[in-house]
């Protein structure tokens, strides 16, 4: 990051904190509700973005995140319902995500199917299978994950409720953001991953098994979406319903691009998208502002379009060079 960008980032952060504090002094409960909703909505997007990021950094486009979310949510819900254990359900969700990731890898890397088509297959298959096997009479049987207070931190005004009194998968996601950041930019694995996304031919000549690493990474990335599915069914909603991922797998892709394929950038973007969602919910609950909720709902999508277009114009966001291309060992 250039010094000037870093400077801008600090200024932005300061402005946001000042604004939050201002609103909090004006209307405490409502500000807390909106910001807590922001963090809540950001978790799923951050998990999806990490899934997409690991794939794209290694050169594989994953537009099947939506399907991975949905299928994982289905199994997380079903396994919890059968075993009565949220933990088992969450594990089942992750396992499902890994399996879906492996399927994507098998199609995109193994069978050399066009990557975008492979992702579309996942999406349509997940919607069809989960709808077909969905049993309306089944319920979760236990109550969903509840908030855990992180000791005295949770008693802090505003910040306490917003960040330190959250359910477990949200904490796990925050930890994963740090882990993925370190892994991607400070480890041998990360360097190799970025190498096969930028120049698989060169990576190959220095002895990296491109196809194997892509297989591994896309499968692994699926685990993040799987955790997202578990989050959706066991922490956010507490049940399963048809097409419950509601397009957030696609939104996660936008979050990833917006966040320049870095974990922290993606989380910042996820918080922004989460903020508009939370704001939309608040607008629906009380009618102080006369803005139709549909227009607030459009905001993140319009902003994404503008950002994607602007970044294209300025050339400031560059895709991994080998993204979307099938690698043939030559």
């Amino acid at each position, binding site marked *: 990051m250039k010094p000037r960008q870093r400077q801008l980032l600090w200024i932005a952060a300061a402005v946001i904190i000042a604004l939050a504090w201002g609103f909090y002094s004006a209307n405490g409960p409502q500000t807390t509700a909106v910001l807590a909703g922001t963090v809540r909505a950001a978790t799923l997007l951050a998990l999806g973005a990490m899934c997409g990021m690991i794939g*794209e950094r290694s050169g594989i*486009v994953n*537009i099947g995140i939506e399907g991975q979310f949905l299928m994982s949510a289905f199994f997380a819900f079903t396994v919890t319902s059968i075993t009565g254990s949220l933990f088992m359900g969450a594990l089942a969700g992750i396992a499902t995500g890994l399996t879906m990731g492996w399927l994507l890898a098998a*199609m995109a890397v193994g*069978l*050399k*199917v*066009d*990557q*975008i*088509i*492979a992702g*579309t*297959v996942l*999406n*349509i*298959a997940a*919607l*069809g*299978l989960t*709808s*077909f096997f*969905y049993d309306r009479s089944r319920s979760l049987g236990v109550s969903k994950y509840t908030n855990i207070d992180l000791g005295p931190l949770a008693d802090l005004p505003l910040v306490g409720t917003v960040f330190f009194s959250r359910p477990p998968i949200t904490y796990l996601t925050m930890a994963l953001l740090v882990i993925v950041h370190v892994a991607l930019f400070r480890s041998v694995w990360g360097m190799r991953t970025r190498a096969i996304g930028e120049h698989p031919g060169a990576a190959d000549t220095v002895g990296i098994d491109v196809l194997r690493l892509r297989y591994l990474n896309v499968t692994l990335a699926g685990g993040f979406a799987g955790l997202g599915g578990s989050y959706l069914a066991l922490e956010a909603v507490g049940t399963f319903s048809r097409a419950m991922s509601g*397009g957030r797998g*696609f*939104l996660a*892709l*936008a979050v990833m*691009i917006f966040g320049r394929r870095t974990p922290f950038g993606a989380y910042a973007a996820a918080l922004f998208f989460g903020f508009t969602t939370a704001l939309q919910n608040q607008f629906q609950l009380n009618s102080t502002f006369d803005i*139709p909720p*549909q*227009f607030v*709902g*459009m905001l993140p*999508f*319009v902003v*994404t*379009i503008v950002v*994607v*277009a*602007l970044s*294209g*114009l300025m050339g400031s966001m560059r*895709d991994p*060079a080998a*993204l*979307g*291309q099938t690698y043939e060992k030559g």
Partner: protein
Amino acid sequence: MSRSILRSVAVPLAAVVLGLLIGAVLIISQDASPVTAYSSLLQGGLGDGDALLRTLQKATPLIFGGLAVAFAFKAGLFNIGGQGQLLVGAVFAAGVGFGIDGLPMFIHLPAALIAGALAGAIWGGIAGALKATTGAHEVIVTIMLNFVGGNLTDWLSANPWKDNSGSNIVARTPLVEDSATIPTLGSVPVGFLLAVVTAASCWLILERTTYGFEVRSVGHNRNAAHYAGIRVGWIMASTMAVAGVLAGLGGAVESLGVDGRFEAGVNVGLGFEGITIALLARANALGVIPAALLVGLMEAGAARMQFKAGVAPELIDVIQALILFFVAAPVIIRWLLRMRQGGSEQLRLGAGWGRT
């Protein structure tokens, strides 16, 4: 000639058979009989005049949606925004359909159709123009426009264009005027005929005109097309606008010919099925017709299959996904059929996200 046709049909056909076979396994897993299920499916889709009408009605938006994807495909663009284009097309066609009265049919109906087509053109054109001028990837932009379109049409049908008759609380427009309603001839909806004519026109444009040649050149190799003097940006922008027109028409025909109005949430998912149709048709404009008829038949018969055989209608979605999988990965089918590798069997969208 016959051999090449056989070759191009073999993979989709085998994919359909495999999809149905795996579907049969799923049916058995639900303790139902695949024979009963599939025969009632067929009856529900073809059994009598009503069934045929249902099939053709279901196939109509699928043809338009499939064309919207297939046309963009030819220029190497992936139009995943059929959903949004269809929705805005549906709502604006309905808007003109109910909002104006006293016009004769030969003016009103075309006007409503054109309104839908234009709305779709704008929705698709935005993505194409951004792709051409800024390099913004059309997949991201069209997905975003799907959401924007969904919100916009929800708002229109819940607020300014809401049906306020009686005690209606649903977000929907009033019924369109008779003069804007697409008629049905016996068991054949006129919308379906329109779809077939549109598919034929698309084929002609793509295969027999200079414009179509330019579109295909851009799809094959953008750089080569550029050096050959083709205005690549214009081709990409206009192709997406045409794709939007096609999806928008699909939405318009739904509003004016099937539902009689626009209702929020009714057409959800229709736009995405266009992707399945286009892939099944191997992005061939004429192939879209049989592909849409097949899927339309399954959707029309699904209710009867549930009634007679007790199989959830969502089975159709599973079968569609399986077919899509086998079409997308022809390696599996070639191995099963012991076929040799054909030149252009693998569908390619060119370089994924990269802007070239």
